[in-house]
């Protein structure tokens, strides 16, 4: 397939049947609409392109900035589209909680502004909430902003009404599925697809999925947050159900590991919510039905999100020579030396003084003649074996003598005959009036 522009690759994504052995539904064919295969990686490519397209050519003439309130995929797509047209992009958000996405946006040249947190000493009469201020700056005279306004822009919904929805019908041989399940973020895809499917068959049952209130699932709003979305109309959905972050990750793992679909947690939530919803209906069915859900984006951007919630999935093999393996008794009895004796010892010129603090702290003040190996790096070195000769005595120093004791114990166990920890650390050294220098 040959294209003149990457934007032509937006849409026409595959609809893939999920193996019955995976979902366990006997009478329902379950299909995944693979929006993760859009060129910028998510379902938002459609909305971003449809919202920005009418304005980009004119904007490109005079220059200017595309602006959106987005913490993820819409920002990513708009950043790319803006860049392709010689424009800059700014995302304003208070929901940017995925570090990989933040970094990716910066890499794509986006500017990110984070809204301030809530006031601790609340002023109930304050009227200037951050969003009001945001809209005020957009309307300042002389500004050349294109605010795509994804939560209120009907062209967001339209992208799915004319694209995603009809594509599903076409791939199901001209029939709408009996069920449609979607997560509610901007409500653009769920509303647009639902409208297209119902136009085809008013009996389509639409399930909206929101995040459980105490949970955070990227790309999905809680029910309270959904009410803040202009495109959200509770009447669109036959039922609105909550999904927890744990459920979303479970669903994601099933798609990743058993279906070969590298979906992120949003797609996982849709899969989990779909199967949960359909299981009951499935039991009472006597004829075959079909269901479709949207796989919003890919897993790769959410590794830190998943790691925080499911560290068990990342179980890495134990490494040798790790300070974590030492018993407390070994640390308590690690060879140590007080400040006065340490000063005398250093004066003999024998010990190598290793300062385990960060380079910034070391640069500010340190023991004269010491070398700086920050503890993280030191630990890494020790996995490979002793980093000094056995006949070179070593004095280890850290802020309070805690980490240095740990490493002195470890080096001793590794066979170093003369390593000592500076008791009380650099703080005790300073408090004793011993000299610290800057180089």
């Amino acid at each position: 397939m040959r294209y003149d522009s990457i934007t032509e690759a937006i849409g026409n994504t595959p609809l893939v049947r999920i193996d019955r052995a995976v979902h366990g539904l006997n009478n329902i064919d379950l299909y995944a609409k693979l929006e993760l295969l859009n060129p910028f990686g998510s379902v938002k490519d459609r909305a971003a392109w449809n919202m920005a397209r009418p304005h980009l050519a004119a904007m490109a003439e005079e220059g200017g900035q595309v602006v959106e309130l987005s913490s993820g995929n819409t920002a990513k797509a708009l950043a790319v589209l803006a860049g392709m047209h010689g424009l800059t992009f700014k995302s304003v958000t208070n929901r940017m909680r995925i570090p990989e996405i933040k970094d990716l946006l910066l890499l794509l040249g986006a500017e990110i502004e984070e809204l301030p947190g809530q006031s601790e000493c609340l002023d109930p009469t304050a009227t200037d909430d951050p969003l009001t201020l945001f809209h005020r700056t957009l309307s300042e005279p002389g500004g050349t902003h294109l605010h795509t306004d994804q939560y209120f822009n009907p062209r967001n919904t339209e992208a799915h009404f004319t694209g995603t929805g009809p594509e599903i019908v076409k791939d199901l041989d001209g029939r709408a599925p009996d069920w449609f399940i979607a997560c509610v973020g901007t409500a653009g895809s769920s509303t647009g697809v639902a409208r297209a499917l119902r136009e085809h068959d008013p009996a389509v049952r639409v399930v909206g999925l929101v995040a459980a209130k105490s949970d955070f699932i990227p790309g999905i709003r809680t029910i309270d947050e959904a009410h803040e979305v202009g495109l959200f109309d509770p009447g669109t959905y036959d039922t609105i159900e909550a999904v927890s972050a744990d459920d979303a990750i479970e669903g994601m793992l099933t798609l990743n590991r058993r279906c070969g679909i590298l979906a992120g947690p949003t797609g996982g939530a849709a899969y989990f919510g779909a199967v949960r919803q359909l299981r009951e209906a499935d039991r009472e069915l006597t004829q075959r039905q079909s269901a479709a859900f949207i796989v919003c984006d890919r897993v790769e951007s959410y590794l830190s999100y998943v790691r925080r919630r499911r560290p068990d999935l990342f179980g890495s093999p134990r490494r040798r020579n790790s300070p974590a393996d030492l018993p407390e008794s070994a640390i308590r009895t690690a060879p140590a030396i007080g400040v006065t004796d340490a000063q005398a010892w250093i004066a003999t010129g024998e010990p190598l003084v290793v300062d385990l603090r960060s380079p910034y702290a070391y640069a500010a003040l340190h023991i004269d003649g010491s070398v700086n190996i920050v503890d993280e790096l030191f630990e890494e070195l020790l996995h490979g074996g002793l980093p000094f000769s056995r006949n070179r005595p070593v004095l280890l120093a850290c802020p309070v003598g805690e980490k240095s004791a740990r490493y002195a114990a470890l080096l001793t166990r590794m066979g170093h005959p003369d390593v000592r920890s500076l008791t009380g650390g650099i703080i005790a050294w300073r408090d004793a009036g011993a000299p610290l220098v800057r180089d």
Partner: protein
Amino acid sequence: MGGQPLYLEPRLETRLRALLASPGLLHTLTDALGSPLNLVVPDQLADNVQRFRSVYGTHHLAGQVFLAHKATRSSALLRRLAATDAGVDVASLGELQHALGAGLTPDRITATGPKNPEFLWLAARTAVTVSLDTRGELEQLATLVRKHTLPRTRVLLRLSGFETSGVRVLSRRSRFGTGMGEVDPLLDTVERHADVIDLVGVAYHLDTTSLTEKATALEGCLRVLEECRSRGLRPRAVDVGGGFGVDYLADGGQWERYTTELTEAVLGTRPPLTYGGHGYGLRNEGGTLRGRLGLYPAHRPVAGARYLDELLSHPAVSLGGRPLAALLLEHLYDLHTEPGRALLDQCGLTLTRVLEVRDQDAGGPLLVRLAAKADDVALEEHGVLMDPVVVPREPAGAGPGTGTGTGTEPVAVHLFGSLCLESDLITRRTVFLPRRPEPGDLLAFANTAGYCMDFHATRAQHQPAARKVAAWQEGGAWRWCLDDQYWPTTPVGGAQ
């Protein structure tokens, strides 16, 4: 009543729970001293100091915990504080006098906030540490010290307007502190007055619940301290201010259910939950929710000492990603904190007597009038939504409701104050109580010691301001005295 009662039950630790389980004592106190009546529990403050200290311990950090005096006027609490090893942060001449009089020595006092010459003079005269907002204030202090031949004064420089690289973190502008762009001339001034000014460190205080903003500020402070050292100055502390917060509610589920229902009430999909359809900052525009919920996040599991722990564990993005605590420690800096609300968590409650309980002709919530003004229980002023606890006059089972079925079912009420003023509402929301209160019962508002007890209280319409009582436990019984009669020697088990 319409649907399930939407309770917002207060979180009660042992002491407040025990007090509320002593209705005889509470009624005796209000009978003698009137309603409203404030109760403080000084021993709780010592426990709270300990919780902060243990976070310092975990991170091996030295430094002082300063109670932000402005959060309470209580003498008992301040004197109890003096008997611990903590300090106090004073923001007026009166507070400084009060702190000195309560037994806090100058090495345990920091003077902050807007200062008049008298306040500056007494601070410099008694050798407390002064936190300076601007270069002008620094000049003013230097002149004062020279003119009155006062001792060389220890100062902290309060900074503001911190900037980030990469992601721009927008922060509310502060009217206090010197902007980061003005640091160089400020340090020039410090050096010029080195004979009368001793720079001990830098400070910030941001009015935000956001960890990211505070982490950004702390990183900014570390950079300024590094600049100080390169100039040959020897600062040794960072003061990170307060704003650690309090977890007011017992049950997160109740808070979530309540805020969802409030949203629906604003959108008109359920009956109103407030007097006059007040939306607490939310409004309905064509079926879409607009505005921002102007409420304190009352259910806040990460608050107080735990919040400090999170802040200290937060990675310093611009300084190699090490946790902030590790950076402070490695740079050999002491950490100062100024918690107000968080140190006063569970340190007191406000008692109010029910004067009248009226059914509305058209049905709906009961109208309950209290012998207190809205400003006596300033929870609403701080956006804190929390139910009062009903303390019945008659012991359970002996009341007039016994056997008749009244007084045992949950009720919805509106709470009115005693001022002759339409807007004197203790809270604008409909409050759900587990039983119908009767005139003579007490409603106890828990956890009011921080800001909600005496910060806003007035004597409008010649109505009394609440008296204050200090209470402590001795041999399994509660003892009490008037707040200004309390000294650490007062309890029999104390240091006599």
